[in-house]
């Protein structure tokens, strides 16, 4: 059985657990009972979840599930019909939102501005002095791999590079809360790693990060917490590991040197796939699985025996049904 690892570390820093966070009273963004309708059609229905500091929260859902609407409401650029957005126990104010970093769904920067100047301008709007803003923008853009393009106009960048600049725009003022709508879309695998690395750094520095993505493998690799939305309602929310445990099946994979045909006669075991020494099976419970392992060892060399943990894609498909 997979269990949440209490000693998870990221970049040499302990990932704070939800319990630790609550004890310390850290910056927690909490959405409570958010409801939103467009022209009589309810797009969000009683949406509630938390985004914890020091942790990356993945926000997944199909097209039109309500991810962007939720994020825009959390940021305050869209009005909600009911519910509340709470930061550290009190409703979010305009000045709180200055501590938010936001990456909108539809990417946009001024096309005719130079990249570094643009990012520095946004930092200055957040109160940084000119020199400090320029230094921050330069460092961040270099970190994101745009060091060569600092003086280029935004419109001359490729889409992938504009995406990196957009991420810089959401990070340059060192926000405590990050709300990123599809930060990985349109990035090549190397760029995904760079951006993921930057987000992990921000989380390690204590920021609460909420990001949506369709790339479930990236979310699975990166996030600590997971929120799954479908049809405007939250279908699952919690730590990634707890969700996995909750949706774990007693499915195991056995690879042995001998023939695994005996498994078919084993009580409490359903063989799903079988080929010589390889078998994929569902066990009724842990005891049956342990019995199979002992049986396999007694019959010859076991190459591997492993529980088949459900992938995020499988969990996702299961909970949105």
């Amino acid at each position, binding site marked *: 059985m997979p269990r949440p690892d209490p000693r998870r570390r990221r970049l040499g820093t302990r990932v704070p657990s939800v319990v630790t966070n609550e004890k310390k009273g850290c910056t927690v963004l909490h959405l409570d009972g958010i409801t939103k309708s467009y022209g009589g059609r309810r797009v969000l229905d009683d949406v509630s979840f938390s985004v914890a500091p020091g942790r990356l929260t993945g926000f997944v859902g199909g097209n039109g599930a309500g991810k962007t609407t939720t994020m825009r409401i959390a*940021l305050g*650029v869209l009005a909600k019909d009911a519910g509340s957005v709470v930061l550290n126990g009190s409703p979010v104010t305009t*000045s709180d939102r200055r501590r938010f970093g936001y990456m*909108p769904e539809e990417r946009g920067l*001024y096309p005719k501005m130079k990249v570094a100047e643009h990012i520095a301008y946004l930092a200055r*709007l957040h*109160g940084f002095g000119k020199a400090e803003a320029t230094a921050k923008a330069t460092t961040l853009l270099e970190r994101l791999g745009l060091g060569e393009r600092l003086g280029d106009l935004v419109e001359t960048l490729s889409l992938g590079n504009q995406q990196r600049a957009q991420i810089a725009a959401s990070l340059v003022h*060192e926000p405590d809360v990050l709300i990123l709508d599809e930060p990985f879309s349109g990035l090549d695998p190397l760029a995904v790693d760079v951006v993921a690395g930057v987000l992990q750094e921000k989380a390690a520095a204590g920021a609460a990060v909420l990001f949506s993505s369709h790339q479930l493998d990236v979310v699975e690799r990166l996030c600590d917490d997971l929120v799954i939305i479908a049809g405007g309602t939250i279908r699952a929310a919690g730590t990634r590991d707890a969700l996995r445990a909750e949706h774990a099946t007693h499915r195991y994979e056995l690879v042995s040197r001998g023939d695994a045909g005996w498994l078919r006669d084993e009580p409490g075991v359903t063989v799903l796939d079988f080929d010589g020494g390889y078998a994929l099976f569902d066990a009724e419970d842990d005891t049956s699985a342990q019995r199979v392992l002992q049986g396999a060892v007694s019959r010859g060399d076991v190459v591997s025996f492993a529980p088949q943990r459900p992938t995020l894609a499988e969990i996702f498909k299961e909970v949105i049904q």
Partner: protein
Amino acid sequence: MTITAPRTHRAPSDLQSIWLVAEREIGSKLRSKAFVISTVILVLAALASVVWGGFTANNLSGSGIPVAVTSQTQSAIAGLDGLEVTVADSDDAATALVEDGTVDAALVSGSSDASFDYTVVVKDNVPSTLLQMLSETPPVQELERGAGAASALRYFIALAFGLVFLIAASTFGGTIAQSVVEEKQTRVVEILISAIPVRALLAGKVLGNTVLAMAQIVLLAAVAVIGLAVTDQAGVLSALGAPIAWFAIFFLFGFVLLASLFAAAAAMVSRQEDIGATTTPITMLIMAPYFLVIFFNDNPVVLTIMSYVPFSAPVGMPLRMYLGDAQWWEPVLSLLVLVASCVVAIGIGSRIYQNSLLRMGARVKLAEALKG
């Protein structure tokens, strides 16, 4: 554990935010080649028309304004420069000189006004330069009242005020509208307003474009004044100096009014393609004074109305002042009307702007934008 210390977020003051936005607006406009080239062309055109005006004036009138006097009225213009004086034998002879066009005006004896012992007789067009040279405005008798069209100079000056207003207001009004829609279309506005208040964003945009527009107006005015001085047109300069200064002041408030409306109208749409749908009525308001002043610059009633209506006052009032029609208090009153409407426009404009800015997609209806 590398928990960062709680950051004190030094929020910039509203004034700082406004200036940052204004600075960006100015910087991005100054970097546009199209803008720089069109400004240079505008300045060259102003310079060319002033110089051309100087040549034609010199060719026509030689040393000054041709004026006929009699031995009785000669003392009234004693010591005045810029006049080409013809001494006629009698009042009738002087009037005849006006009729046949030899002189622009004649000073004849006798007056309906007790404080003057002479009357200025003109054909159809009062030479305001002459009237300004005289210490007090004397009674004027027009021989062919309303018969002829306005003089070339009157038309030319009316055209100049109208054209400069039209070009500057539509250039920078259009700029602010485009920049509002650009921010909306690219969604950069969502990032901006999570950093600064909406009203600071609007104020910064209006301020930045007003600074640019005023800079252009002052540049053109300076070119006109220096050009007139250099080409030795002291008469025109002394008559035009005050109207040009008033034009600049009127333009300042008139432009703030228009800019607020342009920003509001642009905020109601989400794409550059739709911008015309909401800004066309305001463009009409800018074009109206230009056409009115061209067609009606010899119609005192239309000019008087124009000089008080906020949108056309920047063109109408300076022109009336140049023509010598306006009492001293009239520009002040008209300016008060303009400032009051400017305040109202800022109020309505910022309301529409705030209510429409984050509404993407279809055009926001005016009633909804006002209601919020």
